[in-house]
């Protein structure tokens, strides 16, 4: 083992904890759900107020329920209902889809950079 070997090992041992710190930050609840049909944005819904949303897809209407900063599929015209069984989405960056109906939902936003903002 040479001196450079030791440097490489130390570098690796410092890098690994940093990677965990960098990539495993707690996830924040998202604020908005983006619903897309055939890659086209159809609707942006706020997760902060409870509501039911209906979106037209390839086979028919997909219906979403929004409650407690979460969103889920409640009705779908597809056969296997994989989308409904997927359950709730809440974290920013999470994605679910109803492939037969060509609908994709993604939760965005909500990562708080400031503790408070005063005007």
């Amino acid at each position, binding site marked *: *083992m*040479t*001196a*450079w*070997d030791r*440097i*490489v*090992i130390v570098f*690796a041992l410092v*890098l*690994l904890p940093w*990677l*965990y710190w*960098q*990539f*495993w930050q707690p996830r924040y609840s998202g604020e908005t759900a983006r619903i897309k049909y055939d890659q086209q944005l159809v609707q942006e819904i706020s997760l902060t107020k409870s509501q039911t949303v209906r979106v037209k897809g390839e086979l028919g209407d997909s219906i979403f329920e929004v409650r407690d900063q979460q969103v889920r599929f409640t009705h779908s015209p597809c056969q296997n209902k994989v989308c409904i069984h997927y359950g709730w989405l809440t974290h920013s*960056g*999470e*994605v679910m889809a109803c492939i037969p109906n060509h609908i994709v939902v993604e939760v965005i936003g909500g990562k708080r950079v400031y503790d408070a903002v005063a005007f």
Partner: protein
Amino acid sequence: MMPLPSNQSPLLLTPTRDDHHIAWLAAVAILIHILESAVPVVLPGIKPGLANIITITALCLYGWHTAAWVSLLRVLVGSVIIGSFLSPTFLLSLSGALASLAILKLATLLPGRGLSALGYSVLAAMAHMTGQFLLAYLLFIPHPGIWRLYPLLMTVAVLLGIINGIISQRLVNHLRR
């Protein structure tokens, strides 16, 4: 055997010593690559990467040029034999090989005694994983979510890099004798 037409002289290629080294090492690496592809994957994205032992050994014994040939021949021929040529698996394999060759090139430029097989192996393993992640992110899964796997797979890469490095060092010592 058909006699050659008189106006054509047979093409003679004289293999150099380097060619012999590359051919032997690449053959061993390809064999390991194929055997390893038969081992079931325990966790997605994790493979022991035993064929990289040969790349590192080639680097320590004969230099970067030979190591690059061995590594790229292994990726190319291995994928043709397994049947994954130009498939996503092949692209991931190639991106990993290119990334680790790039970092190994830089590592050979270090002053002093430089690195031994252990250091080379750890660096190559980390570069390999990073190259694959970049390609997977850019081409296959362009969603930031996949980076959550990165620390975990890098930990495994470092561990396997150390193990492969130790094996490679023993192989180098053995072959030098």
